[in-house]
């Protein structure tokens, strides 16, 4: 079963590259450039996993994460932060993020985290 991953980042080149990379590794990816757009996508066709940037225009990553977890608690979310202040990561984990990863993202590492996340979906919760 092909797992669906939603990549949300306003950095278009990066988002595209991430989508492409995950695609090539057997995932079906959707790319969104804003939080609002992502929430609409989730409502229309919920993904298994969301790779979400912390820093987004208008609605920030944490707010998007909160909304996702309110409406679809089963969707897994991996947060991406530009630099580690400690606070953002703690907050994200408190809100129910699966994991976080620092930018610039090593796509290989991201794939491993994504795999780990997806693996949990096979196991009964």
């Amino acid at each position, binding site marked *: 079963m092909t797992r669906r991953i939603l990549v949300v980042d306003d950095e278009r080149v990066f988002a595209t590259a991430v989508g492409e990379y995950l695609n090539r590794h057997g995932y079906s990816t959707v790319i969104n450039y804003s939080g609002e757009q992502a929430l609409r996508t989730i409502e229309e066709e919920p993904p298994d996993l969301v790779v979400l940037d912390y820093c987004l225009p208008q609605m920030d990553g944490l707010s998007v994460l909160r909304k996702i977890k309110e409406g679809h608690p089963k969707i897994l979310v991996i947060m991406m932060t530009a630099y580690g202040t400690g606070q953002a990561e703690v907050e994200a984990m408190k809100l129910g993020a699966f994991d976080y990863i620092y930018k*610039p993202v090593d796509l290989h590492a991201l794939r491993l985290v994504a795999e780990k996340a997806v693996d949990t979906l096979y196991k009964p919760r």
Partner: protein
Amino acid sequence: MKLEKTGLSRPLANASLTTRFGVYSFVCIAIMTAVLWYIVSRNLTTDMLDREWETTAKFVRAEVEWHMNPEDFTAQDFGAVAPKFEQLHRQIIMMPDLVRIKVYNRQGMIIWSDEDRLIGTSFPDNAELQEAFGGRIVVHMSPIAKGENIYERGPLNGLVELYVPIFSADKKKIIGVIEAYKSSDNFFKDIERARTAVLIVALGGGLLLYVALFAVVRQASRKISEQQANLLKMQSELVASQRMAAVGETAAAVAHGIGNPLSSIRATAQLSMLDCGDQNGRDLAEKMQFNLQNIIHQVDRVQGRMHELLNFVKPLEPHPSPVDLNSLLREQIETLRSRFGEAGVSCHLRLDEKIPKVRVDPNHLEQALAGLLSNALEATPRGGSVTVGTGVSSPSGRSRGVNISIEDTGEGIPIENRARVFEPFFTTKPHGTGVGLSLTKKFIERNGGMLSISDGSNGGTRMEVAIPLT
């Protein structure tokens, strides 16, 4: 001519508050003491003298009243009244220090004296005698030069003349004057003793006042200096924290500004590397792979710098726990072992196994020690060595603590750079950020420790971390 404000015209202008107060108050108190001594001793002398003369005069008058009649002073035949005067004389000289008397009649002629040669003579130019005829008791010091005292010179030096007017029974008329000579030696010795006592008291009081005031001013001056130093320290800390805040803002902006592009570069490059696997031309693929690998490497470097900068401005809240510094050092050296090997630098351990555990944040100390070890390694040329030691400082003293020393055999740090090596953004390395050592210092200080720099025993640099045992 206009006077220049030179050092000579105002010698104390640049002196400290304590010195100025010391000099000015000394002069003032010295003047005050001298004036006080002068006034008190003068009054004392005058009082003592007045009382002395008055007592003597009263005594003389009482004796005259007892032994003599007013007619005795007007008798023409001096020989007839002589026995009575002799009787008077015997009584009067019973008074201490009284040595001689002369009895004058109203005409100023000596009608009796214990010096016979004077009887019948008169000295009209004796001003004191004339004054006594006016009704006042007259005292005259150092009278020896006077003509009437021709027989008192020599053995009777240091005499005081006391003229006591003798009144008639109705106290309206002066019938004669008795001049008594008093030896002043003992008396003036008493006065001198009193004056000396006053002088000692005045000097003692002045000195006490001076010492007390000086102590108060010195204490105040120290307090002021302390407060000034604190103020300066606070100001410099404020400036430093403002600078830090500015650096923090800049760093955050830089991180945000370059972080995203870096993400894109890296992701694209990684994707391209994936593409390389699909290319047919193997050489092209290899070349591309090499270049892309380079891009990734460069990006990681920029990322590393960025993190270093952000760590520097991040508030460091230590979470202390008991830490074995020897183990921590061994772990850090183990991590760097391959780098030591590549650089051809040996590492010697001189660890004191008896050092107690210290309460610090292990992560902070780890980063600080990693930084110091890495610096030492970079400073040491091939074939050189880095010596790492631990020990207990002042084992019995109050400031008991644990010391870590890291010594290299590099070129050392020039003295002019020593004060600056801990400043943020100061570096002598071509590719350094200048953050490392200042961050290390911050880590150590936040954990209550101190970082100091000195010459190594083999010409290199010795960095010493002192952590107190609380």
